[in-house]
């Protein structure tokens, strides 16, 4: 029990799925499962008092990524100063497929061909990382991995190689996936404090 308590102190995460938000094991909000993300995301926007008009221009994947990082980072940096050199490693299965399909609709018919530039710029999954970087002025490195399932092993290995190089650096890690109306986000903070103490098994349990 004490062991678990310790882990909770060093492992900070946020999970958003099935219209609910879990922050470090604590249920923050839970909405009716029938409401769509468009509505759910507005409720979250208001709850965290985001006041960031750019948010409404984003596609769903970027909205989800930004909101998840917002819950996690606001809580994490309550007491400590937020550094700029934060690296970000995110991953998912569906890349930017939802927005890809939307964009494809605008070019499918050559008699009704109006490709939308505002959709096209969101047809890359790492744009979601870019949005987080812009919001927080994070200038570290970033990478977006694609995998069938959440690959905590790869992400931890990659994060640890970054932290080995820069001992006091922090890496924002996780999964943010959007496929049709189905979505899931899970983000956590990797730092030098947590290696050797947090196993991928522990992370996988929380992800589930």
């Amino acid at each position, binding site marked *: 029990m004490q062991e678990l308590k310790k882990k909770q102190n060093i492992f900070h995460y946020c999970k958003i799925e099935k219209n609910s938000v879990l922050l470090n094991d604590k249920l923050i909000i839970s909405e009716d499962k029938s409401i769509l993300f468009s509505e759910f995301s507005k409720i979250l926007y208001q709850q965290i008092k985001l006041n960031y008009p750019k948010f409404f221009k984003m596609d769903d994947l970027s909205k989800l990524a930004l909101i998840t990082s917002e819950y996690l980072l606001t809580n994490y940096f309550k007491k400590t100063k937020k550094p700029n050199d934060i690296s970000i490693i995110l991953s998912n299965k569906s890349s930017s497929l939802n927005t890809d399909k939307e964009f494809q609709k605008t070019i499918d018919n050559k008699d009704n061909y109006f490709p939308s530039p505002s959709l096209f710029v969101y047809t890359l999954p790492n744009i979601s990382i870019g949005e987080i970087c812009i919001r927080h002025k994070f200038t570290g490195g970033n*990478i*977006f*991995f694609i995998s*069938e399932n959440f690959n905590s092993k790869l992400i931890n290995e990659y994060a640890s190689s970054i932290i080995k190089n820069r001992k006091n650096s922090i890496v924002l890690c996780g999964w943010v996936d959007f496929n049709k109306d189905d979505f899931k986000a899970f983000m956590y903070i990797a730092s030098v404090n947590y290696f050797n103490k947090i196993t991928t098994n522990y992370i996988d349990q929380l992800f589930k």
Partner: protein
Amino acid sequence: MSSIYISSNNIISSLGFNTKENIHKIKKGISGIKFHRNFGYMYEYTAKVENKILNEKFSKIGANKDYTKLEKMMILSLNDTISKSPFSITKDTALIISTTKGNIDMLGSKNSKLHSDRVYLTKLGEVVKKFFKFYNDPIIICNACVSGVLGITVAKKLIKNKNYKNAFVVAGDIVSNFTLSGFKSLQAISNKPCSPYSKNRNGISLGEAAVSVAISSKINSKNIAEIIGEGESNDANHISGPSRNGEGLFKSINKALNMACLSGNEIEYICAHGTATVYNDEMEAQAFNRLNMQDIPLNSLKGYFGHTLGAAGLLETIIATKSMNNNYLYKSYGFNKIGLTLPLNIIKKNQKKNLSIILKTASGFGGSNVAILIKKCKN
């Protein structure tokens, strides 16, 4: 500190089906960019891999009907690299795949006999893994136009971290209706073959390529380059436009130099990103001038291959490495009169130069910037 080396490699592009063919064409000053009728109704300058030759070559190792164009290109490229590699595939070998849009042409194709789930990058990865019987699941990188260079830095990190002993990296993208329409909608497609850093430049020419390399920490006579430093930084400025003062590129080059314990004046050649959009090329000029690197010979290879998106960084790393090993600089194809507010030493004609340490940079949507430092191997 253990070192990381690139050994066998292959390039499949509009200029040829192996590295040698590609280098030969570049040396002769031939570009792969041509005026094409694309998808029946779009007339643009693009650099394409010829389907007929691709299918002919692929038929020797697989059934054409079972694979998409990109899969054929990636498999054919990897097949060449693996066959010439100093190591073979074991349980300690990583497969790294870099792409921006993968089989995106599957979205718009209604009569393809292949299952539509091939549009998932995980499926593309599965196909490549299965063909070569890799033991490990592929590590797939989808990080805009820096994906190709990231293939190298990911391999380096994971090998140094002792997660794998070696890796095969393959990077590829095709010219699709999707990307062509998208860049057109952003008014980023040039109405002439692209001309990086030039006064009259007005956008990119899209290209397609699949490129692969073998990477390991073992010293071998087949090694062609050592990766001695890397740096990555986000502009944190705009999702589809580069930072005005080149902040992210500046930071990433500085990080790479620090890692390699080098100063900027020790770099003998820069193989830059040079997409030929007004903003990208100007941003690079800002960053290189801030680093006092404006006099170092520099080129963009986009004039030969077009912008091959997720393949570009890996493709250009191989060409730059060949340049270094041959002590020979290739002209920045398509360049005419400089069109930047600050000076850069653009390579105007092919020339001999002794080279031992060079810099490769890449920047992409989402604000990503990556720089790697490459050193000649003493074989």
